[in-house]
């Protein structure tokens, strides 16, 4: 192996890191309060091997960890069949035969083990030939139940933080409109799909920032209205304060206090804001002058809103201040071009806005960098629409017809790698949750 070993330093999470004394003993030059990360070559995807775990649910724990690390797209999961992997485990303690792991391309060994309340995971640095992290994760729910699986996803996310300094986004769920035109939710790894609404027609779900509820557009005898569904009670309530008629594309502000949405009338469709607990009428913030303005998405600091508008004669993505002032075209205007840009979603790190753009008659997923306004196209097969960022600001979920019927796919914006998330036809309009707390 021609690995150029480098040291990745990150701020310690003291509870999970080795004791500073131990770290100092092994690396005398490292100042206290700084932990050592894994040794691997920058720009490569380090090889990670998850050892088998004995005891109930052990196979599931290993499978979920492997899949989450694979879907995180920052490491290469080295898989060994159960027998080979067991043969490589030390008889006692931590006495691994590190050179064999190195030959297989393994940079980090992860060893999940049963504990009193769940599992502990130990991480070994193959190059440094030593244990570098250990953490405990409670697993109190029934094996393979949705809550149990979510707890294992949390362990995966933490392990990724050990390796890369920032956590993964596996402990998340994705809301979407199903082929039955109801709101569904599915785990980020494609498991546990379940239907949440049973109204005439529901679409455009958006998570609250604390992930305890979501807001969506539902069709009623008085037109399309805005409703909030609570994960805690399982109830939904329709917001008063919206006009009869067309009320669509709701979204929460990052502080969770404001709901922005679009409301239509004879005079066009404009973006409105309302306070959720307040029955007073909504306030209009766009001046569309008869045009259609929809699909608001807040910047993470809550100061700006990206939205789409037909005010220039064709649909384009704009940004404006959160009070509706200073609207400006996001993408470069090209005279004579009949562009169609739609469905903006502001990345949680604020750096990029994802949107869909019509290119040669088909819609493709694009991003625009908020600093230099450079754009990047991610898709080219079929119709690809409605991108929504994961909390890691790296992955996006979107709908695509690339294999025929419309399905949800997940895209890694760094590598361009894609995976299919749903397998029931008609899924669209996805929204990725924040990291779900226990």
């Amino acid at each position, binding site marked *: 192996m021609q690995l150029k070993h480098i040291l990745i330093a990150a701020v310690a999470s003291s509870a999970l890191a080795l004791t500073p004394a131990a770290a100092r003993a092994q690396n005398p030059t490292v100042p206290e309060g700084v932990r050592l990360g894994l040794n691997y070559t920058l720009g490569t995807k380090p090889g990670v091997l998850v050892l088998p775990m004995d005891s109930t649910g052990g196979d599931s724990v290993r499978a979920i960890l492997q899949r989450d690390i694979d879907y995180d797209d920052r490491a290469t999961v080295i898989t060994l069949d159960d027998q080979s992997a067991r043969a490589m485990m030390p008889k006692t303690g931590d006495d691994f035969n590190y050179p064999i792991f190195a030959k297989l391309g393994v940079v980090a060994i992860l060893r999940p083990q049963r504990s009193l309340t769940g599992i502990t995971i130990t991480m070994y640095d193959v190059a440094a030939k030593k244990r570098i992290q250990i953490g405990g994760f409670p697993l109190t729910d029934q094996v393979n139940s949705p809550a149990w699986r979510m707890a294992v996803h949390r362990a995966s996310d933490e392990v990724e933080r050990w390796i890369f300094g920032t956590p993964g986004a596996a402990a998340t769920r994705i809301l979407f409109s199903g082929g039955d035109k109801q709101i569904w939710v599915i785990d980020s790894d494609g498991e546990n799909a379940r239907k949440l609404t049973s109204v005439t027609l529901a679409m455009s779900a958006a998570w609250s920032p604390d992930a305890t509820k979501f807001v969506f557009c539902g069709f009623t005898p008085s037109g399309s209205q805005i409703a909030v569904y609570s994960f805690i009670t399982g109830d939904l309530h329709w917001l008063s304060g919206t006009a009869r008629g*067309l009320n669509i594309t709701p979204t929460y502000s990052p502080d969770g206090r404001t709901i922005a949405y679009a409301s239509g009338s004879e*005079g066009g469709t404009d973006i409105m804001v309302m306070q959720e607990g307040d029955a007073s009428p909504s306030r209009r913030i766009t001046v569309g002058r008869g045009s*259609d303005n929809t699909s608001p998405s807040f910047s993470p600091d809550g100061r700006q809103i990206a939205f789409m508008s037909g005010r220039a004669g064709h649909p384009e993505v704009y940004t404006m201040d959160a009070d509706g002032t200073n609207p400006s075209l996001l993408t470069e205007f090209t005279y004579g071009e009949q562009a*169609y840009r739609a469905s903006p979603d502001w990345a949680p790190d604020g750096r990029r806005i994802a949107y869909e753009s019509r290119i040669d008659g088909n819609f493709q997923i694009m991003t625009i960098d908020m600093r230099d306004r450079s754009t990047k196209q991610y898709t080219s097969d079929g119709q690809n629409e409605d991108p929504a960022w994961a909390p890691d600001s790296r992955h996006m979920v979107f709908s695509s017809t690339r294999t025929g019927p419309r399905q949800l796919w997940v895209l890694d914006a760094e590598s361009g790698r894609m995976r299919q998330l749903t397998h029931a036809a008609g899924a669209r309009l996805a929204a990725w949750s924040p990291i779900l707390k226990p």
Partner: protein
Amino acid sequence: MHPSKIIIAVVAVTLVAACHKIPAPLAPSPVAGNDSLDRARADSIARANAARQAEIARAQAEQDSLRAVREREQREAAQNADAMKVLAATIYYDFDKADLTEAARSLLLAKVPVLQAQPTIHLRITGHTDDRGSSEYNLALGLRRAAEAKAFLVNNGIDASRLEITSMGAEQPAVQGENEEAWSRNRRSEFAPTSGGASQ
């Protein structure tokens, strides 16, 4: 009941009442004897015959008037159906446009006299789009299509309060398919009478 039906029913009842008056009883003969008995018998038979004739005539008149009512109802129903067809005629649009085409304008113009003749009828106008582009934005586009149709009718003298607009965007396609034939039939506004008309 339709007002015209009431009028016809009243006329029919009056006619039947008049028929009953026609076979007025004959005055008894002042002459007595066998002849008079025979005559009385003959008169009685004649009276009975006349009554039977009158009954037949009455029944005939009743049947005629019923047939007249039925025919008038059928004629009105046919006219109504034609009017409803004109009212409900769907109009179509170009891609990502809400502007009314020439064909759409003439279909809308034909609705105006029907709405003027039946002032109790209200219309719900529902705008639709094809399934290309943002399904969220398409809801707004559908509403703008319905709004354009409403504005045209209002400009031609129809009270705005009789016209309600709504949108289903791309959510209720008229035909399935991913080709221009299907798309062109899905970019439309539909019109549904909502009260006062013969159909709900």
